[in-house]
């Protein structure tokens, strides 16, 4: 492939364009100038003096948008930094990500928001939006200064990783977030019910002798937050929905008119708890991988719109932290670099959804969920684009990983479909 690193004005010609506003893929060509899309024509080739990238083999889509990434900086730089996380995002086809607030210090102060935003801009490999913490220190006790956080640039509020146990605090948080027009992302988990749990509760947890978290631990929490969203009229986004019951709760709350959205992760959509058989700590996540019926319900939720979008819950942990006994290992897996390939292989290639649906779930839909710009291919819009080869068969290898942490169970997996690279404001970053 031509080196597009330094080209600032060019045409991408003959690609199948996955425009989320369209009904289907269409062959077309896109002109990029000074970081913006200046022209879109629905023809295979163009006559121009500018350099032309022949993209006939590829699908051109808006750069992916992830609402749920843990960048670990500040505080846990041995797991991930804004730099390595941005590189991982770009390699996974993402041009915009939202980073979560469970850093150290937590993102509960404007100074932390500003630090992250500045660092991300200096690095310039991915747009990084910031979720501020819902409560001081993410302790679920005192609500933060949402006005100040918003002025510093946060796009949402979340104590992700922790549930706000006190319902009065959560009510206040929702009311006050609503005042400042900020959506609240809730990590729904009754921590008493899931206390010391290692995986999903069920036959496999009984077999393996690992303490299970029942689906009810998630569903009780989803239920309460849906009720509080209705009570307050606030914008609630339910993070990483993983159980059939939680999908149903969100579905019902939406029908009642609550302003609720929900996301599902690539791993919860494609993997189930039977895989924990070998006690691979890279499969330990929170919420845990659930049963086959839950996976089916999540997919049904994607199809009927109950699940609004896909979010990775990219959660880096060092090899040192993961290379221990199962119950000593922290929960989380990285996901930015494999999300598209994993979902394309399991959902698109197997006929569950089509490619354009997947693109929507990874672009315009997450962007709309948190009212972020991006996720579209539009004239005069920023040239944030991803180039995909849906036909490429490849094996995911550890050496490909750009994230600082390597905690993924997918090393060695065979995928169909691969991200070739992204244009961020027209600047090419190769993923292969």
């Amino acid at each position, binding site marked *: 492939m031509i080196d597009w690193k330094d080209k600032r004005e060019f045409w991408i010609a003959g690609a199948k364009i996955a425009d989320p506003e369209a009904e289907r893929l269409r062959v077309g060509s896109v002109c990029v100038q000074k970081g913006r899309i200046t022209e879109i024509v629905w023809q295979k080739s163009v006559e121009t003096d500018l350099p032309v990238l022949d993209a006939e083999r590829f699908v051109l889509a808006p750069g992916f948008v992830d609402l749920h990434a843990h960048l670990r900086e500040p505080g846990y730089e041995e797991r991930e930094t804004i730099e390595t996380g941005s590189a991982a995002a770009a390699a996974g086809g993402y041009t915009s990500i939202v980073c979560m607030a469970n850093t150290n210090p937590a993102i509960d102060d404007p100074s932390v928001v500003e630090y992250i935003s500045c660092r991300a801009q200096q690095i310039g490999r991915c747009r990084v939006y910031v979720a501020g913490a819902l409560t001081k220190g993410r302790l679920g006790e005192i609500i933060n200064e949402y006005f100040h956080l918003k002025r510093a640039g946060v796009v949402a509020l979340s104590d992700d990783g922790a549930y706000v146990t006190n319902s009065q605090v959560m009510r206040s948080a929702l009311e006050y977030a609503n005042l400042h027009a900020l959506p609240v992302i809730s990590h729904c988990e009754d921590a008493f019910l899931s206390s010391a749990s*290692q995986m999903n*509760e*069920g*036959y496999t*947890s*009984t*077999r*393996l*002798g*690992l*303490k*299970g978290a*029942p689906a009810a631990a998630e569903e009780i929490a989803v239920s309460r937050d849906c009720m509080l969203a209705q009570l307050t009229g606030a914008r609630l986004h339910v993070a990483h929905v993983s159980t059939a019951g939680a999908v149903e709760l969100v579905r019902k709350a939406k029908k009642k008119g609550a302003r609720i959205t929900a996301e599902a992760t690539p791993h919860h959509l494609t993997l189930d708890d039977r895989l924990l058989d*070998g*006690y691979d700590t890279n499969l330990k996540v929170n919420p845990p991988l659930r049963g086959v019926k839950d996976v089916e319900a999540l997919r049904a939720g994607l199809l009927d719109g109950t699940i609004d979008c896909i979010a990775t819950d990219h959660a880096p942990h060092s090899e040192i932290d993961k*290379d*221990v*006994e*199962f*119950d*000593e290992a922290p929960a989380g897996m990285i996901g930015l670099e494999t999300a598209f390939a994993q979902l394309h292989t399991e959902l698109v290639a197997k006929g569950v959804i089509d490619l354009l649906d997947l693109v929507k779930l990874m672009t315009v839909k997450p962007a709309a969920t948190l009212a972020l710009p991006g996720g579209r291919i539009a004239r005069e819009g920023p040239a944030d684009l991803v180039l995909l080869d849906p036909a490429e068969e490849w094996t995911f290898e550890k050496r490909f990983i750009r994230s600082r942490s390597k905690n993924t169970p997918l090393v060695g997996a065979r995928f169909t479909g691969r991200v070739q690279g992204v244009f961020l404001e027209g600047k090419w970053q190769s993923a292969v």
Partner: protein
Amino acid sequence: MRTEGEEDEKGLRKEEIAARFSGKRGGGTSSGVPFPQTRPAQVSGRGKHTVPFNRKHLLGLEDLAAEEITTILDTADTFKEISERPIKKVPALRGKTIANVFYENSTRTRISFELAEKRLSADTVSFSKTGSSVSKGETLRDTVENIRAMKVDMVVMRHGSSGAHRFLANFLDASIVNAGDGQHEHPTQGLLDMMTMRQHLGALDGKNVTIIGDIMHSRVARSNIWGLTKVGAKVTVCGPSTMMPAEIERLGEGGVTIEYDIRKAIAGADAINILRIQLERQKARLFPSMREYFEVFGVTPEVLASAPEHCIVMHPGPMNRGVEIAQEIADGDRAVILEQVTNGVAVRMAVLFLVAGGSFDSGTPE
């Protein structure tokens, strides 16, 4: 790696195995060493031929085939006799080094393994959580890598984390014998329970075994369920619903039956296995008081009257007398609890011997 010749050795009939251990030389003459040449009492009543045991590790009973379990039990039956001798030692594992790594407190399992190893003439080192590098914060992997670097042939490990042995097996070339992992498996306990049942009840196919107590947190229950159901026994579990794990009825080959009424649970039992109830479960609010536990699930003479006359009473120990088991039962004539302890040594000898594989050549006494 085992050679074909060694395979043959693994396929020896147990009489032959016993003969090797009693010091009989190829020519059939007495070795002159003070090992009596008597055959151990034949108690199993199982088939004469024993299938080869070709596993490097014993991680759990779930992975084993019924025939492999029978091989271990048959071998244990022959080994039991060694502990009856005036000189309780055979050279089967001479020159082998075994590390006993105990990350959890254990008295009987550890002593039982150590005795088994010594009676097989292995060199042993023991290592426990207190006073070791574990308390200095070293990872399991590093600790065991160090043991590996010292060229240990076998690691007997007890660990509080379920799956810890599988984790080790990923990078350790020594054989691993599971002496209990978290709430997952305690295979040698399961085997010694089965050995004891077999001695009293004969073949286990079709026998009814009831396990009573904290099923959820019990590795003994799981190993019993897998081992017993594989050889065709029917298992019933009984205990507080708060300590009954999810979908337990699917566990084991063909599943198990749940019965919360202890009298009904033991009504047709050939053996009952009473699990230790731990005080910490009360703190976790899984049952309200020891007093109430004893009233509802304690095995008393009055409760045991519901079981058939021949039903034996087992307990993996240590017992909480007056909590899960009444004093009269613990000391009664249906209790085989100390036999379990005796059999434990024989089972562990059999497991160590079989897992060591092909150690006969160096094991012939001079």
